[in-house]
């Protein structure tokens, strides 16, 4: 089959809506357009039963009860609702929260906001592989700790955290445990009981569902988690999240979860093999390449590589017909390199040269081979232009060399 360009390898950013998902959603835009809160007519009933079916499909994927799911506009909202909602509900009990330095901004910035309101937050470091050490969580827990929030899998380096161990610690200490599980759900097995989670954030668009719809899992028994709603309104979702439900989105989310559950085992194996093919292909063609993140405890479709001496944005730009992303400062509005890569302690110089590959359902071996060839060609071209490469070849130690530091901006 001829290769179709451009190639999408950025499935951590978002995924296409699966055709089956799109088909499931379609009638809910036009014929079945009712409001699930309309309790007095068939249009409303049809919408409500569609929502409940979707709730059951999503609950089935993560092993919770359907009533424990609160629909939101996506994981950003779910993270905000979980962290701020718990903080406000348990303020009397304590004001300390534990999280990690590599969380998504939806978690980090929610925590920062709470710090301004008098909460204390511990941002745990991670190992060189990107792992949170459960022993660090144990050490950080105090009598005032009300919540621990650690992501299931990181969106840049794909590292999968030891949530079950952290969950046990939290349970022992009677502290609530939340996870932003966006990148892992539908890709690796997730069960809220096995992981000891009390709250978990999900979003549809990372698992071949539509954008703008997500959910927060909120445990209802042992313990029954209390939440303070973050928006006032009609009291939808049992008062936890007001706003007319996005029925087509929710239907698509449900269908996407069902599909992901069916495909998980085979896709995980296929993507792991593709990922290994990509990494082997890169190493066979280029030297001075470094893997970022954990070698095995990582999402099947994730590969994050630093191509030393080549700035990441210039490499992205060179790979014209391949969609990937970079942790380089030059790609960010803040002109700061990725804080996730910084937290690994690999050094800013390597962070600037990183590329994230996010393999997904559509990707093939042919595409991986094509990307390897383009990478080899373009990294070689850019290295030929790089003053750093020639210095390194000449034996100069770039870490101890004198640099004229300027102010950027």
């Amino acid at each position, binding site marked *: 089959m001829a290769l179709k360009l451009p190639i999408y390898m950025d499935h951590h950013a978002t995924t296409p809506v699966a055709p089956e998902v799109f088909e499931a959603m379609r009638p809910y835009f036009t014929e079945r357009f009712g409001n699930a809160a309309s309790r007095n007519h068939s249009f409303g009933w049809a919408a409500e039963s569609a929502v409940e079916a979707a709730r059951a499909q999503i609950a089935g994927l993560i092993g919770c009860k359907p009533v424990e799911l609160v629909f939101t506009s996506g994981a950003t909202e779910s993270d905000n609702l979980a962290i701020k909602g718990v903080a406000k509900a348990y303020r009397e009990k304590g004001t300390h929260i534990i999280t990690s330095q590599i969380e998504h901004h939806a978690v980090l910035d929610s925590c920062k906001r709470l710090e301004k309101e008098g909460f204390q937050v511990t941002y745990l470091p991670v190992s060189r592989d990107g792992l949170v050490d459960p022993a660090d969580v144990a050490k950080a827990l105090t009598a005032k700790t009300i919540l621990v929030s650690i992501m299931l899998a990181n969106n840049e380096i794909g590292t999968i955290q030891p949530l079950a161990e952290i969950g046990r610690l939290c349970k022992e200490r009677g502290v609530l445990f939340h996870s932003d599980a966006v990148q892992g759900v539908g890709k690796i097995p997730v069960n809220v009981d096995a992981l000891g989670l009390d709250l978990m954030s999900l979003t549809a668009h990372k698992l071949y569902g539509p954008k703008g719809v997500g959910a927060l899992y909120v445990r209802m028994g042992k313990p029954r988690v209390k939440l303070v709603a973050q928006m006032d309104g009609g009291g939808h979702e049992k008062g936890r999240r007001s706003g007319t439900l996005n029925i087509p989105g929710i239907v698509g989310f449900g269908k996407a979860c069902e599909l992901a559950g069916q495909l998980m085992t085979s896709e995980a194996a296929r993507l792991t093999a593709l990922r290994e093919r990509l990494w082997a292909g890169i190493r066979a063609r280029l030297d001075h390449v470094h893997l970022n993140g954990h070698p095995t405890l990582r999402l099947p479709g994730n590969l994050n590589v630093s191509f030393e001496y080549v700035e990441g944005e*210039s490499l992205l*730009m060179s790979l014209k017909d391949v969609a990937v992303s970079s942790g380089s400062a*030059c*790609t960010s509005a803040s*002109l700061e*390199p990725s804080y996730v890569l910084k937290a690994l302690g690999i050094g800013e110089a390597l962070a600037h040269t990183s590329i994230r590959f996010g393999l997904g359902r559509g990707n093939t071996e042919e595409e991986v081979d094509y990307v390897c060839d383009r990478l080899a060609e373009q990294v070689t071209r850019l290295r030929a232009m*790089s003053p750093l490469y020639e210095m390194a070849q000449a034996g100069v130690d770039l870490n101890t060399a004198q*640099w*004229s*530091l300027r102010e950027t901006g």
Partner: protein
Amino acid sequence: MLYSAQVLDHFEHPRNMGNLPDASGVGMVGAPASGDVLKIQLKIVVDPDGTERIVEVKAKVFGCGSAIAATSLLTELIKGKTLAEAAQVKNRAIAVALALPPLKRHCSVLAEEALKAAIADYRQRSGTTGAAPAGTAPPTQ
């Protein structure tokens, strides 16, 4: 980020990249940790009338596509020019010529800084000051 056709042209076909073994002045600015390092090498010949002319220029860049394009354009603008003329090339003109978005303007600043550093290096090596010798007319543009 969407790039202008000018940036893409220079990025895909960068001019004057490489090394000058017999450079008269070398300027390197930036740092790997800040994500950009730029090196400019100049070969300068002094004409019988004392005019210093850039007869050859080569550059190397570690940086984003805009930094590569800005450096490439800068080398084009200064090649064959007198040092006095080259010193007039400003990052602003490069940013405008490449239609750099605001976030990428600093990449052209770096190119100008590398040029200044290369000229300063030449001055130091040659023991010249760059001040116009008495009796000569100021350079015209």
